[in-house]
């Protein structure tokens, strides 16, 4: 039996296995620390706003307009503004986004138009949101004469979230097996019938997820609304698309910018509401997606 325990050919190396193994171990420790630190800051942020804001969260807060006095201030106008704006945004962006994606995936597969539209979409996704604000200010507020209204905000926001919806819808359409299209064509269906009856229903979950993502983005965005001049002090509920408005993140920004700590706590309360809404929306998206996924997977309808 072998008496020597070293492997052949080792003499010309200083292999130092233990040291090299240690590098890996240290790296894993470091990486876990890095990940933990990032997630801990997030948890800390959540805990902090909850701690500051939870005392202010009551019906009065939800059902009052803004006020110079912290005790009387609330987010009624902001909630209405955000809900209206998000609704209009989706009404505009959803059909536009889905149609764009359908065109790119199902119609323009090899047309000259596809490439520039696709590149343009990915570049639009990288444009800073405040630039959309400047666009909205010039085009919607001034040129189209919408003023600093809910509608102007929604139009701006719709363009901002358009790339999100388009990309998500494209992915969902690509995931639909082509066998379904072939089967439909084989039955004599036209392209639009095939898409409407077979492809879109199959892609529903993905489209929905994309739209919820887009809605979350629209609800949280602040900068473009400031640029188009959404008011920070709105003691009324907008009743018309051309009414002026405020939105939840604007209200939070406004309170954060005030020197008094009472308003900071109000801002924290507003953040709690905003984060709760976002959390709910994303949970709903996950649940719906799972359910749709199961149905598409052959489960009972």
């Amino acid at each position, binding site marked *: *039996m*072998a008496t*020597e*325990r*070293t*492997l*052949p*050919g*080792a003499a*010309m*190396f*200083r*292999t*130092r*296995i233990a040291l*090299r*193994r240690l590098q890996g171990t240290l790296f894993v420790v470091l990486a876990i620390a890095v990940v933990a630190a990032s997630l801990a800051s997030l948890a800390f942020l959540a805990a902090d706003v909850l701690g500051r804001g939870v005392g202010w969260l009551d019906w009065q807060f939800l059902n009052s307009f803004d006020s110079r006095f912290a005790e009387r201030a609330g987010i009624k106008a902001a909630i209405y503004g955000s809900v209206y704006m998000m609704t209009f945004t989706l009404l505009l962006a959803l059909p536009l986004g889905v149609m764009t994606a359908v065109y790119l995936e199902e119609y323009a597969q090899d047309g000259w138009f596809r490439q520039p539209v696709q590149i343009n979409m990915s570049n639009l996704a990288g444009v800073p949101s405040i630039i959309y604000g400047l666009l909205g200010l010039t085009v919607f507020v001034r040129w189209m004469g919408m003023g600093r209204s809910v509608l102007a905000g929604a139009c701006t926001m719709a363009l901002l979230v358009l790339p999100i919806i388009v990309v998500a819808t494209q992915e969902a359409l690509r995931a639909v097996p082509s066998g379904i299209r072939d089967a439909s064509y084989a039955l004599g269906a036209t392209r639009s019938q095939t898409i409407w009856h077979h492809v879109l229903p199959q892609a529903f979950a993905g489209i929905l997820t994309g739209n919820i993502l887009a809605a979350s983005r629209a609800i949280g965005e602040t900068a473009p609304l400031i640029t188009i001049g959404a008011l920070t002090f709105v003691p009324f509920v907008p009743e018309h698309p051309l009414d002026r408005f405020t939105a939840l993140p604007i209200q939070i920004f406004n309170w954060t910018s005030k020197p008094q700590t009472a308003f900071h706590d109000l801002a924290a309360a507003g953040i709690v509401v905003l984060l709760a809404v976002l959390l709910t929306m994303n949970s709903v998206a996950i649940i719906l997606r799972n359910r749709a996924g199961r149905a598409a997977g052959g489960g009972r309808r």
Partner: protein
Amino acid sequence: MVQQVSEATSKRQGPSLPDLIPSATPRVGMPAPTDEAIEDAAIEVRGLSLWYTRKQALADVSLRIPRHQVTALIGPSGCGKSTLLRCFNRMNDLIPGVRIQGEIDVDGVNVYAPGVDPVEVRRAVGMVFQKPNPFPKSIYENVAYGARINGYRGDMDELVEQSLRQAALWDEVKDDLKKSGLALSGGQQQRLCIARAIAVNPDVVLMDEPCSALDPIATAHIEDLMRELAQRYTIVIVTHNMQQAARVSDRCAYMLAGDDLIGRLVEYGSTEQIFRNPRDPRTEAYITGRFG
């Protein structure tokens, strides 16, 4: 040592298996006669079995691979050739759920013994893969990579040149060592991978179908190279090409997976004997192309 092997094999007669060909005696490993010819084994496998999670892929393989010769593992697809080859340098350790029983000595060191680091084993037992896989680095850095990480003490330029010369690539690339390894032709890439493997001064070089992605001329090049390299290294090659096995190998191991899909060693002997005078009818069937 020889005695120990036969002892081990006789003890580990595997579970009875349905025997497809009645005339063949079920053998596990190849007993004494051919093994005795090997005086100096670079690799010695004793009673090796392997499982992928639940599924067994190798059963009770025992064989001794002679130093400074070319040994070919042949057999139909899925019989466990690659699996066996990857046991020699513990590559299988990287696949989650792999379990191994038995022993493999490389130069007398049991590479599966506790306390042996697979990283060290892979330095001593090099590997060349089916598809050339040079790193996206310069030719020089490809060859120097292994030596660097293993803490090479000598002159790196010299080592790179010497390795490229041994791999019969030096003359083609000596003026262009900074060029990306990916910019070479397929056959050159494979020789670069060979140079890379021998730069860490291995004892054994494993090659898993090293020519299957290459054209006939590049293949001939690599085959010549294998013969050359056998003077300094022990070479184990997996091949599906019978002519190649006959051309380059000194010894052949024929493996086969039965109905249970578990790979076993059917016959092992000199290439001459395996091709001219196979003892097992299943080997003969495979060699003559009637099967596999």
